[in-house]
């Protein structure tokens, strides 16, 4: 397959062959061309050259529907739900909707939707508007939709990026049973442990080319990483640093909609990790601290200055608090704007004087950000929407880092990011901490939480249910905290 965008090769000799009844991992760095290849497989893009064979016969998919009819179905990266319609309808969209004579068969619709949700262990009310669901639930609904199609070839582009362990386990169970039934599954993920746990074979892409295809059983994780990145990488997690004793951020008795009674301190130079289950209130906590959401009561102090109630993002930024939000497409970047405009946006005051913006200063911070974070793009003027998912995430980081914040809040900062880049981001976090920044990161991956943090807080139903030094942390104990079970002896429910 070859596919060019504006003369740039997104794919340049990519190939993939998937067998019935296998789970085939498709791996590669951010921007390697995985999503593009998938979009070609499902008729969303037409390739500049290359061909597609199904059961040995050449096929051509003019659009998504044709591919679906041929049994090829994808759950796209960043695909989500239709917020204004019900969960049941989201699961059985379009031609999947049971109908007779043009009329929707509501009863059968509900029954089938329920069955799909049951198969992935989800108890989401069918009549709810999908827009009212949590992000995790939305992903599960989208997944249920992909399952509902009776696909013979099922392609999943980073399905677990925003899921936590429980959901991932459920999802894997479903995928394994589909494999039993002879479905061919293509699985894209940046979480290599998952690949080794789940997949049968793997294909690695680099710069739009397929580099190698191999049985998972014959592969080793270090080999996979170095093949992906094209060089060998060192340790994933850098050494921990030493936090200072100066308090950078104090949160006292914070109450929000779901957040209850949260108090903690972060020191300059410290990396504080926050873990918990989906919906435990981590995102809300960060949003409140960053001024993006109002809180009911409680106090937030940066350094020595206490922030006013509901300061708004602008004031919080000026006080030195910056947030890297969890949903990059709806919260992080303006997809239609260029990289430099996105980066300038959070830095308007530093790239302007007397109300006038300076193009030179924007170019300056953009170049620095793109260089520091290795953002892969044609030019600083390229619209962010054209970048690969991981590179979009780096733009969000670059935008906030350009502010040199005292307190950097990051909500799932490595979601959808390849291992090589993850390592870079961890190093970057350490570098920032060494420079005196207090870093607070939310993550749903326990190994990551342990690897990158100095100290870990776990949240459960809006409260802090446990605290631990990362160096002494143990995944099982953390998981117990996540379920709110840690202090069993003094918690007589």
């Amino acid at each position, binding site marked *: 397959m070859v596919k060019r965008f504006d003369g740039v090769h997104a794919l340049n000799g990519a190939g993939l062959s998937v067998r019935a009844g296998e789970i085939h991992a498709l791996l590669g760095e951010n921007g390697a061309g995985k999503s593009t290849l998938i979009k070609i497989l499902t008729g969303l893009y037409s390739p500049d050259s290359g061909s597609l064979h199904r059961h040995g016969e050449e096929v051509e998919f003019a659009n998504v529907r044709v591919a679906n009819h041929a049994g090829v179905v994808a759950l796209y990266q960043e695909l989500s739900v239709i*917020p204004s319609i019900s969960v049941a309808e989201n699961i059985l969209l379009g031609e999947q*909707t049971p109908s007779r004579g*043009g*009329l929707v068969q509501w009863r059968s619709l509900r029954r089938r939707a329920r069955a799909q949700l049951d198969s992935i262990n989800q108890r989401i009310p069918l009549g709810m508007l999908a827009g009212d669901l949590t992000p995790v639930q939305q992903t599960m609904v989208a997944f249920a939709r992909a399952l509902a199609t009776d696909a013979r070839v099922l392609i999943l582009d980073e399905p677990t990026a925003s899921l936590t362990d429980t959901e991932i386990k459920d999802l894997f169970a479903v995928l394994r049973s589909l494999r039993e039934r002879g479905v061919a599954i293509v699985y894209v993920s940046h979480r290599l442990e998952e690949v080794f746990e789940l997949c049968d074979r793997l294909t690695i892409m680099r710069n739009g080319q397929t580099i190698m295809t191999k049985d998972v059983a014959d592969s080793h994780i270090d080999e996979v990483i170095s093949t992906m990145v094209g060089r060998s990488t060192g340790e994933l997690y850098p050494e921990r640093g030493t936090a200072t004793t100066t308090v950078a951020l104090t949160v006292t008795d914070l109450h929000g909609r779901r957040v209850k009674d949260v108090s903690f301190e972060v020191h300059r130079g410290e990396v504080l990790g926050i873990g918990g289950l989906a919906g435990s209130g981590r995102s809300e906590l960060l949003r409140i601290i960053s001024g993006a959401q109002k809180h009911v009561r409680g106090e937030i102090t940066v350094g020595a200055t206490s922030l006013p109630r509901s300061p708004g993002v602008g004031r919080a930024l000026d006080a030195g608090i910056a947030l890297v939000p969890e949903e990059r497409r709806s919260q992080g970047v303006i997809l239609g704007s260029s990289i430099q405009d996105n980066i300038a946006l959070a830095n308007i005051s530093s790239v302007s004087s007397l109300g006038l913006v300076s193009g030179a200063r924007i170019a300056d911070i953009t170049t620095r950000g793109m260089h520091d974070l290795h953002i892969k793009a044609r030019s600083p003027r390229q619209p962010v929407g054209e970048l690969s998912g991981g590179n979009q995430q780096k733009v969000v980081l670059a935008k906030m880092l350009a502010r040199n914040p005292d307190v950097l809040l990051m909500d799932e900062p490595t979601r959808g990011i390849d291992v090589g880049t993850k390592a870079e981001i961890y190093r970057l976090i350490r570098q920032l901490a060494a420079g005196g920044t207090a870093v607070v990161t939310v993550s749903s991956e326990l190994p990551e939480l342990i690897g990158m943090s100095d100290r870990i807080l776990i949240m459960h139903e809006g409260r802090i249910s446990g605290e631990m030094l990362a160096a002494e942390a143990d995944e099982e104990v953390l998981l117990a905290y996540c379920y709110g079970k840690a202090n069993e002896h003094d918690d007589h429910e």
Partner: protein
Amino acid sequence: MLLSSGTVLALIALIIFFFAMRPDVFLSFTNVKNILYQVAILAIIAGAQTIVMVVGDFDLSVAATSSLAGAVAASLMLGGMPIPLAILVALAVGLLIGLANGLLIAYVNLSAFVATLATLTSVTGLAFIVTQGTTLFNLPAGFNALGQGKFLEIPLPVFIAIAISLILWFVLKYTTLGRRWYATGGNVEVSRLSGVNVRRARLLAFTIAGLVSAIGGILLTARLGSASAVQGDDNLLFSVAAVFLGMTIVRSGAANIVGTMVGVAIIGVMSNGLNILGVNAYVQQVVTGLIIIAAVTLSSLKTRSR
């Protein structure tokens, strides 16, 4: 849920207010019939607008299409064509304009605003050409009866408006087409990637909106016994206002027929009530704007407090 919506509250408040001001007149059978008669055609055109707004677009050409359809029917009948045939041709004209809109928007990818703005302009020009700029009248009595006849004391357009609203409500709620419209309006991209033929869905939405607008226009011509190029022009803004008012009554914030009809009722009650109170025409206009703002604000306060 419906009753607690701000838009419905606004309607009730208006009714109570006008009733308190003129208890002898406002809720009399004659006046209620009057209100229904006055809004019947707006209800039909607002129904057309609802469909298009369900798929997340606008149709600025609904009122112009309705005028042209009415003008075509009138001019053909004056030229001697039998009534049913003239009506069919006029409906076909509406359908074709809707189809043109749909093709431009769904297949040529023009923004709905530009495409229907352009059609609005061209179609108005055509209506001027068809009527030669004048008001066509002296239409056959059989035709006028469609708009002026009564059944059980209630004018026919009221029944027709109710029938069309019910059909649209049914289509939107119970057919796969209706659900695809809602899906498309909720998120085009997700719908497309999930195998919904969003182009066809949008094409159909505009086409049907054109057809329904034509029905409205033909009825307006029959109702007035005459056709001019610009009659019914204010149905455009009022239809959009009605749909917007109605969008606030459901949680999803999507366009819906029940809400649209509540919106149409607000507009009808307001204009009739102000007339009954004998409010000066200019002041009426000022007040109309204020009431629309009040109604929508009320709804949005309600929504936010949920």
